[in-house]
């Protein structure tokens, strides 16, 4: 008998002020740019300043986000059985600096710190080290399904009772060379766009950003519980005309129908070249369903779907869909079931199904 899986807490550091769980998108920060930095918390409240100085931005964001989730779940550090992190590029800032040092100094006078931190599993390793967690410690690095891979791994362990509480997160940091090169190939928008106008930009590319989202997933419901995780699936390829069919199949496999989805959260990022996938669903099978979107707030990055997951959990807990994320005018009074669909540039599609707990 498989156990149920619950999301017992959330933690977020993003381009919106999401690090404080007592607020839920009441004030939206309106950016007007092509690249968004996070709204940083006061790190001194979470990390000793001496330690923070040595930390990469991704580690700092993750530490705050993970601590927020741990505090909210009211679990002791030694109750965490596993740590699983998704990240597209890890601490890319350190990798970038190490490459620059290699080239500029002709492979000489190098120090190990940057190399050590550049390992993709640095965040998961550092959190384990900080918490003294000797359990399962995995890091997934597969573009925009990095976070979903981590969730899927956790879900499997919790269902099979191999673990009771797992800290699951997604993190990515933004750095200069990555931004500059992605501008060259048109993956970043050329012209600045205002937060609430991202979807109507009519241009190619996305607004890039960064963030860290951590959650405590357990096979028991705690007082802080946000939602039950029902299913997550990923597909490396999918054509636009197959999306609707895939969604219907996914729902039916999990004994749901289109009408039982109260809110669908879509990963639109305002890239005219690839938003068609989302429009297909929004104008088609989910035409009469309450629709939400989030990448105008979070920006696009490999683990941006962590923000989508955070949003779904918040909607289920607070029982309303904030105005700033509404994609259509269909109302929902008491949302019980939420489906998240995400993809990036037509690849790495994911479907995640959550239910009110």
């Amino acid at each position, binding site marked *: 008998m498989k156990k149920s899986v619950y999301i017992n807490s959330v933690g977020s550091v993003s381009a919106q002020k999401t690090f404080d769980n007592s607020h839920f998108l009441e004030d939206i920060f309106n950016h007007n740019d092509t690249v968004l930095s996070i709204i940083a918390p006061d790190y001194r409240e979470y990390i000793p300043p001496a330690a923070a100085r040595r930390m990469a931005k991704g580690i700092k964001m993750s530490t705050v986000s993970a601590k927020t989730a741990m505090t909210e779940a009211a679990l002791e550090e030694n109750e965490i059985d596993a740590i699983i992190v998704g990240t597209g590029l890890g601490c890319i800032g350190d990798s970038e600096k190490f490459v620059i040092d290699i080239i500029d100094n002709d492979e000489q006078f190098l120090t190990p710190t940057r*190399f050590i931190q550049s390992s993709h*599993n640095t965040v998961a390793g550092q959190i*384990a080290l900080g918490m003294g967690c000797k359990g399962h410690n995995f890091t997934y690095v597969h573009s925009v399904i990095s976070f979903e891979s981590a969730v899927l791994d956790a879900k499997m362990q919790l269902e099979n009772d191999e673990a009771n509480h797992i800290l699951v997160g997604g993190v990515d940091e933004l750095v200069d060379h990555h931004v500059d090169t992605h501008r060259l190939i048109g993956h970043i928008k050329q012209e600045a766009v205002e937060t609430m106008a991202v979807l109507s930009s009519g241009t190619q590319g996305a607004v890039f950003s960064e963030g860290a989202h951590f959650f405590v997933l357990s096979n028991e419901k705690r007082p802080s519980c946000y939602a039950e995780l029902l299913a997550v699936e990923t597909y490396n390829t999918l054509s636009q005309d197959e999306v609707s069919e895939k969604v219907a199949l996914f729902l039916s496999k999990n004994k749901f129908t289109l009408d039982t989805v109260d809110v669908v959260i879509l990963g639109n990022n305002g890239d005219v070249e690839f938003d068609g996938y989302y429009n297909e669903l929004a104008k088609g099978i989910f035409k009469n369903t309450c629709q939400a979107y989030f990448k105008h707030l979070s920006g696009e990055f490999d683990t941006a779907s962590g923000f989508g997951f955070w949003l779904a959990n918040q909607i289920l807990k607070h029982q309303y869909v904030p105005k700033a994320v509404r994609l259509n005018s269909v109302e929902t009074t008491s949302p019980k079931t939420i489906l998240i669909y995400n993809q990036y540039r037509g690849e790495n599609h994911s479907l995640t199904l959550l239910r009110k707990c």
Partner: protein
Amino acid sequence: MNKGVAITGMGIISAIGNNVAENYASLISGKKGISKIFQIETVHKDEIMVGEISDTNPVLEKRLDVSENQWSRTVLIGCLAAEEALKNAVITKINDVRTGLISGTTVGGMDKSEQYFYDYFEHPEVRQHITGLHAGDSTKKIAKHLGLEESFVTTISTACSSAANAIMLGARMIKSGQLDRVIVGGTDCLSKFTINGFKTLLILSDTYSAPFDDNRKGLNLGEAAAFLVLESDEMVKKENKKVLAYVKGYGNANDAYHQTASSEHGDGAVLAMEKALKVAGMQSSDIDYVNAHGTATPNNDLSEGRALIRLFDEKVPEFSSTKAFTGHTLAAAGGVEAVYSVLALQNNIMFPNLNYKTQMKEFDLTPITQVTKKPLRNVLSNSFGFGGNCSTLIFSKEA
């Protein structure tokens, strides 16, 4: 005992051979693949020895029939090993059942990223490598090359235990019924990035690496790709598949001691091995041979040796590290050594720990140094990585 997951195919490319048969031939003839580096222009070329795959990129591209300079070397060698694994498992229609691909990599497309880091701005003709920096991009390309569609495809990067963890995830997904079949393993090519990184850590040997030797001077880096095909019992039955061996046990634990070094007594390693035995439903006495992580760094071999003594309660079975043959192939190592573990089981042969001369002062452990015949039932393979990551796999003849 608990049920294992069937291995129906394997493929490999390393410094000691372009396929499984060549690797086996090198292993039993003691032919190591360690030499001076010749394909990467590095200022350290006279101070280090590496396990380099002999074919150059143009040769590999030709073998795969792909255009010139479109892919990282990580992708090229990954495609070759994955292709061999599928062929070995006699899979022609990859999308006919729920098939997944899980690859481990740390380097990804870093070889191209470091080469064109500044060139991207002036040279549009090399911009295809910009997105190649994503580790997952290598897996994406391998999936595409294999024709895998609408499937579960992901990448694990836990440093030098990546491929072992990919095998572990694959086995768990088959067991839990999420996939019918999965291609698991890893791929990493040599790069200036890793050469210089390990150089700064002062753990690169300037000569042939000597795992578990008292005078060991550090590791030789290597490059490789290795994949296994795992299939569910239903698939094996339905298609009357030949089973090469079984993934019987697996365990991952974190040392939670230091970002790059292993704890003095190998706590994480002991935990990983204990977990793997528990999953397999075995006692430590059921293990006939250990393919050790054995990187030949002072720290690893001491920590791992102590962990082995703790786990086996002083009765450590025959063990060896095959890294003196291949070099330390980083993320791919767990895949490479999974293939070697299966070869050991199939042939009842244990491979020598090359270059070993002097026993370590700290304990009474001697690896096997000759090709040794022994009836093998269960082989344990360790892979440890940065971030305190410790992984153990147990391969068995019987389900």
